């Protein structure tokens, strides 16, 4: 139990550092991205060991979909604005998303297959 509290404490400490960076640095990067990179760096540099955050972080990552439910319900109060601009919004949300997903996935797969074919022995 104590260990979970400490785990949560470490995560919150990284979040706080991230909020500081986001407020102090003049870049349009939100705290969540700084925090993700800071946590990655802390784990990579062994400042934090994996089992010092693992349990609490598995829980938080697991409940992520529930956390998005609340802002998503907010669409109901934006219905009037959404209706006036509906076609572009739906086009941007559905076909463009599928296009981006397919495009970035295929490019990744293609570059990897190029490396496998051309770069034998390099890896």
């Amino acid at each position, binding site marked *: 139990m104590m260990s979970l509290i400490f785990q949560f404490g470490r995560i919150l400490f990284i979040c706080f550092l991230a909020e500081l960076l986001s407020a102090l640095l003049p870049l*349009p990067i939100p705290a969540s991205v700084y*925090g993700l990179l800071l946590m990655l760096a802390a784990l990579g540099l062994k400042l934090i060991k994996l089992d010092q955050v693992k349990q609490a972080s598995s829980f938080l990552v697991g409940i992520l979909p529930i956390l998005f439910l609340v802002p998503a319900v907010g*669409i109901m109060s934006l219905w009037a604005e959404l209706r006036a601009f509906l076609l572009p919004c739906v086009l*941007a949300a*559905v076909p463009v998303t599928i296009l981006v997903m397919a495009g*970035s*996935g295929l490019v990744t797969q293609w570059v990897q297959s190029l490396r496998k074919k051309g770069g034998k022995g390099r890896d």
Partner: protein
Amino acid sequence: MTELLKNSAVWGILLTVIGYGLGTLINRKTKQAWCNPLLLGILFVILVLSLAKIPYEDYKASAAPLQYLLLPATVCLAVPLYENLSKLKGRFAAVLAGILSGVIISLGSILLMGWLLKMNREQAATLIAKSVTTAIGIDVTQTLGGMVPLASAVIILTGITGNLCAVFVCKLFRITDPVARGVGIGTASHAIGTAKAFEIGELEGAVSSLSVAVAGILTAILAPIAINLFF
């Protein structure tokens, strides 16, 4: 009734958990991709609020503690990413190329749509950052003079689309490699899509979280250039 709800600290969270729980149950029973727990949960909560005539603001205030967890949960996406980093060795070039092309396709499609539908700058700026995580998307929209509430709605719709279509799109375009899947899902549909990527597999989810961060940063840099050049 409204008074009782106003004084209760947990009904919003309870409603959220019930909605998601019901969604999960229906999803398990039907095994249909469109019976997505998140989508069903959203529809359930909207239905309950509309039937009971409870304003969204009241629900949001009561469910606020969940919002406080959003930053720590996003930061924790770094943990599975770290655990899977070794599997990405030698594939960073492919991952970066994929994310960059996704961001360019996203910006390009919105610019093209803006031109075809004769949008003004405000409208184009509302849609330009639609594929990235809400926090970055809202910052970018605000800086460029777009409509912020509408932009956040489109960002959420984008996430839900990605969450719903991920498996189908990967099958349709024969994206079989877990790393490529993760890049596609994360670049196109940010953290809401990433939740789906984690259901598909740990590596998919880890790469997807990396893609969310990188695509967000790239969009924050490139979207202002795109809008200022064309609108």
